[in-house]
């Protein structure tokens, strides 16, 4: 059977334990940020349950906080989460070609950086039962951490919350900086994106005319396109070791 067994499901749950723990911590930071803009515990948890994307959810908070436009939110989510498209393409190669659309739609729900990482390392075919184990365990941590964070955001002392605001940026830095050691192109991408972002934020006209959502969209498209043109990646994992 192409779907896998209960044993595959349990293996998925076991392999996702580290993800679950990491997600509790990361989404705790998201929960605090969500409570800062006035979202309830339920709204924050619902956001996490339906989206399961750290950068996407975090960037959306700013737009929600200022009652931004729906178009801007949609484009921002599209750009920031575009990488999942690549991961989904890669995962589709590991599925049984005859696997039905229903299971494909189920696996789609849980395509995140971490779940993708564990899934592609799985030997042989990827069975839906295994994916569901990964997803259930990971999303449990993601929603639990969010709820705890949103709840704590309402009761914790202000000074502690102030410092925890750094957590989400600390994680972003931990994701992008290590690869700058091995790839000059990634280093250039990170530095130019930060430089452009600074210009867009503080320049006299740009800073007020362009919202932070569109700022991220424009910078991502310009910098990633320039890098893809100047330093196209070679192997299929995309690592260019210069």
């Amino acid at each position, binding site marked *: 059977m192409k779907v896998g067994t209960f044993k595959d499901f349990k293996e998925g749950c076991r392999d996702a334990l580290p993800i679950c723990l990491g997600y509790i911590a990361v989404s705790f930071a998201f929960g605090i940020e969500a409570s800062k803009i006035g979202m309830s515990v339920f709204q924050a948890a619902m956001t996490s349950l339906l989206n399961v994307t750290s950068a996407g959810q975090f960037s959306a908070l700013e737009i929600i906080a200022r009652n931004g436009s729906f178009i801007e939110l*949609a484009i921002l989510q599209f750009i920031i989460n575009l990488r999942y498209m690549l991961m989904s393409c890669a995962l589709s190669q590991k599925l049984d070609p005859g696997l039905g659309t229903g299971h494909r739609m189920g696996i789609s729900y849980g395509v995140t950086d971490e779940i993708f990482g564990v899934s592609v390392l799985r030997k042989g075919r990827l069975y839906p039962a295994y994916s569901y184990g990964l997803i259930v365990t990971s999303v449990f941590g993601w929603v639990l951490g969010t709820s705890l964070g949103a709840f704590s955001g309402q009761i914790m002392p202000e000074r502690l919350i102030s410092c925890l605001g750094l957590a989400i940026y600390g994680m972003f830095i931990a994701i992008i900086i290590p690869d700058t050691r091995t790839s000059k192109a990634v280093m250039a991408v990170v530095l130019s994106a930060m430089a452009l972002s600074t210009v867009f934020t503080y320049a006299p006209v740009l800073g007020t005319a362009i919202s932070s959502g569109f700022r991220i969209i424009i910078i991502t498209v310009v910098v990633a396109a320039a890098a893809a043109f100047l330093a196209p990646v070679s192997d299929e994992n*995309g690592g260019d070791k210069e």
Partner: protein
Amino acid sequence: MSRVYLYIILMAVVTYLIRALPLTLIRKEIKSRFIKSFLYYVPYATLAAMTFPAILSATDYVLSSVIGFAVALVLAFNKKSLLTVAAFSCAAAFIVELFLH
């Protein structure tokens, strides 16, 4: 229904479609080297743009943010885990703020 729920559902739909369309429709690998490269660089550009300069106003004081940022950079450059980088960055900012009060 509050506007917040519309935002949540809209972003959920967009994000789900990004994940589901390739898995259900495209069953071949992407061939274009440019598109593959572009998608590879997207997270670095997005996260970098989201982090700086926004991180400077992440805490109540610019000084504690700068110290927290520096700590995160050093730890991340030495390949410490997500949790370590985030935790020590917050802790550094907290210690700085103790002195500022």
